């Protein structure tokens, strides 16, 4: 029997609540709020409480999929990124950069959010950037 409580930060939004993952036999079985964490002081919202659920969810995507002939097929990262880049280029060439929007999420860190808007503005050339926290 192996049991560990692993400290982490909630990945749901930008608040950054401290959580503990309860790991038994290498499986995350539960999430606890970290009592001494200065941000959440032992409290969590319903999303934070259920972090372990989406880790273990059978619906969780573990590798990229590409839709071919109307069906999702498994693929590798190189191919997926290449395909996305190719399609972006194609669309920009045909309809201009403003035809692309970038929607970012609270589930990634602040720094990643910064990088995403940089990608949108500097690489793609669009100002159509938005964030779920603004909705």
């Amino acid at each position, binding site marked *: *029997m*192996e*049991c*560990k*409580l692993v*400290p982490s930060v909630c990945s749901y939004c930008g608040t950054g609540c*401290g959580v*503990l993952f*309860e790991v*038994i*036999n290498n499986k995350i*079985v*539960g999430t*606890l*709020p*970290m*009592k*001494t*964490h200065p941000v959440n002081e*032992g*409290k*969590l*919202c*319903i999303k934070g*409480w259920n972090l372990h659920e989406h880790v273990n969810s059978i619906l969780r995507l573990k590798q990229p999929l590409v839709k071919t002939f109307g069906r999702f097929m498994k693929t590798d990262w190189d191919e997926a990124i290449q395909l996305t880049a190719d399609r972006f280029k194609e669309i920009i060439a045909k309809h201009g950069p403003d035809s692309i929007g970038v929607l970012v999420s609270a589930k990634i860190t602040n720094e990643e959010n910064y990088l995403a808007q940089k990608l949108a503005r500097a690489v793609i050339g669009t100002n159509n950037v938005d964030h779920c926290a603004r909705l």
Partner: protein
Amino acid sequence: MKEQIKSWLEQGTVDVFLGYREVDHHPIPWCFTQEAIEEVDDLVVSPARYSLEKIATHMAAEDPDIRIGMLARDCNNRALNVLYVWNQLRPEQVVTVEANCCPSPLKEHADCSYLEPGTVGAYKKAVGIDNHLRLEAVEAYGPEEGRNRWMYEFQKCIKCYGCRNICPVCFCRECSLDHDDLVGTGPLLPDIPIFHLVRAVHMAGRCIDCGLCEDACPMDIPLRLLYQKVNRIAMDLFDYRTGTSGDQPPFSILGDRVTLEPKPIQPVTGAEA
């Protein structure tokens, strides 16, 4: 204490010992084992409380024969008693090292008022319910005042399920609070007061007044008072003191003799319109 725990682990009295250890300056629950016995030197009696017994039930569910040692305050011991009653752990598989502190009126040992809820603002005192109140004061509210104050508190609920999730004696695989017929999924507010009452009913004869729920509640709902109330009723009606022993729960039928009389229908006095 540390020597005791080490010898237990070495002699195989217990397979694991649940205590606390500081990780990045945060005391967090730690599972000490024979393989890493040197970690026992880092064991701390954390002022931050986690439900170690809940972790223990999770382990026992994986391996029913596991023997578990545990650092236990009064509240942990009460929770263990309840878990024995409800067949989630067996008394013979658990040994405890006593630690003195508990924020409950049920506490028998040292004072640990530093764990009691934080101060409450004037507005909450005026229209809601002060978490520091004694149950008698809450019971003394008139019908309308009681309703207004409780509903003010319940209206704040963001339905995080924290009270249930943190609770050391909540072990059901599927909770009634997840049940569509009782509590609909999605909407906020949750169905008040049904959400809280369903939980309160399930806490009767189970709540050991550890205060973890109130501690975890982002909205400062005075949950402890609510569950103290249901336990008080269980004591009055069933003569059952939750968590004090491993006796069977009060809600059994066979051999039960009731001396209560149904209350008559009293005419309305007109005090409340």
